[in-house]
C-alpha cells in the first residue's frame, strides 16, 4: 500500500476511527446486557404481573450466580488471549473442591490453601505440556478434562465428601458489610479477581507479553519474550482460579462430588470470554468484557427462570447465545484493519 499519508491532517480520521473501535470493543456487550435486563423486567411485568428481576434481592442472586463463572472466565481470558483454550477448568474445580473439603475435615481453613494449590498444580501441568512439548492446548486440556474428572472421583472415593462444620463456609454463604450494604463474599471475591486480572493485563509487563504472544507468537519469540513463561503463567493462573472456584462452590454446598461438581463449567467460562469480545485466536480482548459476558449468562439463566421458561429451553437459548457470540467475533475481526 502506498504511503500517501504525508501531512498530519488527513490522518485524524483513522485515529478517531481507531479510538472508536477500541471503545466499542472495550464496552463490548454492555448494551446487550442492559437490553436483556430491560426485556426480562418488561417480560416479567407482562407475563406475571410483577417485575421481579430488577430488585436488589434478585440482582444479588444474579451476581452470586455469576461469581463462580466469572472467576473461571477470568482465568480463561488469560488463556484465550494467548490463543489457547482451557477445557479442564470444570474438572479442576471438582478436584480442588474435593481436596479442599477433605483437608478441611482435619486441618480446617488450610482446606482453602489445599484447593488452590491443587488447581495451580494441575494448571501448571497443562502449561508444561503446552509450553515445552508444544502440544496443542485443545488436546492437552481435553485430556485433562477427562483425567482430572477421574482424579476428582478417585480422591473422593467416588462418593460425595461432606463437611457440615466447614470453617470457610462464610465464603459461600456469608456477606461482608461495606457501608450500608451487605455484599456476599462470593461477589467480593469475583470482583477482586476481575480487578486483579485487569491490573495484570493492563499494568504489568507480563500483561503486554500475554497480548503479544496471542497476537503473534513467532514475533514474540524473536523479540525476546519468554513465550514458555507466558504460557506457563496463563495455564497456571487458569488452574489456580479454577481451584478458587472449587473453594467457592464447596463453601456454598458444604459438600463436593467428584462426578457432578463443575460439569460443563468450562463451556460457560468460554462462552463468557467470547461474549466479552475476546478474540478466539488471541491477542484482542479485555477482562471487563469477560465480566459482562459472565453477567449476560447469569442474567439470561435467571431471567428465563423468572419468566417460567423450562430447563430444556434454557439450554437451547444459552446455546444460541454462544453461537451468536462467535458470529459477532467473526464480524468484529473482519471490521478491524489487518493490512
Amino acid at each position, binding site marked *: *500500500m*502506498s*504511503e*500517501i*499519508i*504525508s501531512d*498530519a491532517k*488527513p*490522518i*485524524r*480520521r*483513522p*485515529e478517531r*476511527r*481507531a*479510538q472508536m473501535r477500541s471503545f466499542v470493543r472495550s464496552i463490548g456487550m454492555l448494551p446487550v446486557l442492559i437490553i436483556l435486563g430491560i426485556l426480562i423486567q418488561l417480560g416479567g411485568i407482562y407475563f406475571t404481573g410483577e417485575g421481579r428481576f430488577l430488585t436488589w434481592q434478585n440482582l444479588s442472586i444474579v451476581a452470586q450466580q455469576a461469581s463462580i463463572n466469572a472467576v473461571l472466565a477470568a482465568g480463561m481470558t488469560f488463556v484465550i488471549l494467548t490463543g489457547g483454550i482451557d477445557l479442564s477448568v470444570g474438572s479442576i474445580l471438582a478436584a480442588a473442591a474435593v481436596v479442599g473439603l477433605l483437608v478441611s475435615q482435619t486441618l480446617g481453613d488450610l482446606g482453602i490453601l489445599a484447593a488452590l494449590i491443587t488447581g495451580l498444580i494441575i494448571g501448571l501441568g497443562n502449561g508444561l505440556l503446552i509450553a515445552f512439548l508444544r502440544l496443542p492446548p485443545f488436546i492437552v486440556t481435553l485430556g485433562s478434562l477427562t483425567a482430572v474428572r477421574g482424579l476428582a472421583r478417585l480422591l473422593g472415593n467416588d462418593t460425595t465428601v461432606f463437611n457440615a462444620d466447614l470453617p470457610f463456609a462464610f465464603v459461600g454463604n456469608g456477606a461482608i458489610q461495606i457501608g450500608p450494604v451487605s455484599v456476599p463474599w462470593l461477589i467480593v471475591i469475583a470482583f477482586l479477581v476481575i480487578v486483579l486480572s485487569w491490573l495484570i493485563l493492563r*499494568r*504489568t*509487563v*507480563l*500483561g*503486554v507479553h500475554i*497480548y*503479544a504472544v496471542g*497476537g*503473534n507468537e*513467532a*514475533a*514474540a*519469540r*524473536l*523479540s*525476546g*519474550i*519468554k513465550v514458555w513463561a507466558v504460557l506457563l503463567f496463563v495455564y497456571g493462573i487458569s488452574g489456580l482460579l479454577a481451584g478458587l472456584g472449587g473453594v467457592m462452590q464447596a463453601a456454598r454446598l458444604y459438600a463436593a462430588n467428584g462426578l457432578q461438581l463443575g460439569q460443563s463449567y468450562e463451556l460457560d467460562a468460554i462462552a463468557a470470554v467470547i461474549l466479552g469480545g475476546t478474540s478466539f485466536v488471541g*491477542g*484482542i480482548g479485555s477482562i471487563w468484557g469477560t465480566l459482562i459476558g459472565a453477567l449476560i449468562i447469569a442474567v439470561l439463566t435467571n431471567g428465563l427462570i423468572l419468566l417460567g421458561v423450562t430447563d430444556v429451553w434454557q439450554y437451547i437459548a444459552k446455546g444460541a447465545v454462544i453461537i451468536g457470540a462467535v458470529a459477532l467475533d467473526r464480524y468484529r475481526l473482519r471490521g*478491524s*484493519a*489487518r*493490512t
Partner: protein
Amino acid sequence: MQDPTKTHVRSDQPTAPGATSAAMPDVAPILRMRNVSKTFPGVKALRNVELTIYPGEVHALMGENGAGKSTLMKILSGAYIPDPGADIQIDGQPVHITGPLAAKALGIAIIYQELALAPNLTVAENIYLGREARNGPAIDRAAMFAGCNDILTNLGASFGPRTLVGDLSIAEQQMVEVARAIHAKSRILVMDEPTTALSSRETQRLFQVILRLKAEGLAIIYISHRMAEVYELAERVSVLRDGGYVGTLDRHQVDPESIVRMMVGRDLSSFYKKEHRPDAARTPVLAVQNLGDGHRVKSGSFTLHAGEVLGLAGLVGAGRTELARLIYGAEPRTTGTVTLLGKPVDFRTPAEAIDAGIVYLTEDRKAQGLFLDMTVGDNINLGVIGRDATAGWLNRVRARLRSLAAIEAMAIRVPGPEIAVGTLSGGNQQKVLLSRLLETQPKVLILDEPTRGVDIGAKSEIYRIIDRLAQTGAAVLVISSELPEIVGIADRVVVMREGETRGEVGGSTGVSITEESIMALATGVAIDKVAA
C-alpha cells in the same frame, strides 16, 4: 513454436475506435481499465489508474513495492472492489467485477507469488477445483485425469495428472496453476513475479510456455522487477508509481534507464547514503566462524567491525536468513563459533542475544515482527518495557514518552502511539519495527531485507538510518536480495551460496563491489563470464 501469423489476430473483433497506444492499432483491447481508484482507511492506494491490454500480448506491469500493482491486480481479480467511478471494460463491454467468481467467469486468472494450490490433492483435482467433473452424484476422476492430460502435454509438463501437488517443485506447481487457468478458458492471465523462486532453467521453460500462450491469443499481464525478463518477454510496459499511472512504453521505447526513471520519479544519484566511515581501527565486534545447523547452513564465516555496514548477499535459498537466525539464537546451531567483542557466545534464545546487544530485523515483518493488533507504542516499547518497569509494573508515562521520541526520531507518519500498527503503510510499519530494535541500544544489528515491501521514500529514509547507525559505531549486517541496495550501502559484501559463505568483495579484497562481482560469487560463475 511461436507462430507469428497467429499473434494478435482476432478477426472477429472490430477495430478499436480510440486506441491511443501506438501498438496494435488493428486489434481491439481485450481489457481496458480507466479511472480506477482504491481507498483504504487513511491511504489512497490507487489514483485514477489506467491500463489497456490487447489479446496476444505480454504486458509488463512495473513499479516499486507499494506502487499499487498488487492492488490493481486484486481489483481485476475481484479481491478488491474499486472506488465508485471506475471504468473497466472487457471486449469493449463495461463490467463490474464483484468477486473472484465474477472475475473467473470473465476469463481472468491470476497466478500469485504464493501459489493457491492444495498440496494434499492431485494435479487433476487442483486443476478441476471448484469445477469437478461429475458422474451423477459421484466425482468422475477418470474424466478429470483425461481432461488434464492434453493440457499438461501441451504445456510440456513432465508430470501426470495423478501426481500429488505437494510432491512437485515450485516451478511444476506454477505449471499446474497455468494449466488450471487454461482449463478454465481464461483469456487474461496475470502472473505476479512468477520467476522469484525459479532457477534459470525453470525460468526459460516458463518463458516458452508464456510465449506459446501468447501465440494462442491470451493476454498476459506480467508483473516483475527484473528488467531482463521484461525486456525479453513484453510487448509493452506500463509503470505505476505511488498509486498513480505514469505511462506505457512500447517495446522499442523500453530501456532500463527510462523505466527506472518512471518508477522512481527522480534521479537515483542521491538515493543511497554512505557518509559513515568504517572504523579505522577495525575493531571486530562480531566474529562468526564455520557456523552451521547441519541442514541449510553448512558453514558461515565472517567478521563484522564497529561502524561498518557489511552486506550479506546470495540467491534466495542460499541460507542467509538461516545463518542470521543461528547467530541470533532463534535456531539451534550444530557447528561453529560466534564471538562477540572477543568473548565466545552461544545464545539459546533470542532473549539472550538481545541482552548481549545483538538484534535481528526479520525479513517477514507481518508474520514474525509486528503485533498488528497492538498499538504503535506497544510495538516500539516491547523490547524494553521490562527495563522501564518496576518489579513488573509498567511505567506507562515513560513508555509513552519513549514511543513519542521514537516516532519523532524515525519520522514515523502516525497521529499518535495509540494507533494499531496494522493500519500503517509498509514503510511506517518497518520503521516501527526498527525503532523497537534500536530502543535496546544494540551493538550489532542484523537487518534482514530491511526495505522489503516499503515504498521508495521510506527506503531512502531507512538507508539514512542505517548510515547514521554506522556513524555512531554500531556494527550493521544487511541481508538483501536487491543488489543495487547492497552495492549502494555496504562497505564490504560477504556472499553465500548453497549454505556456505563463498567469498567477499570490497574492503581489503581489492575487488570492487558491483552487481557483477556479487553475482559471480552468488552463482559460482567466473566474473568475466558474468560481465560479458
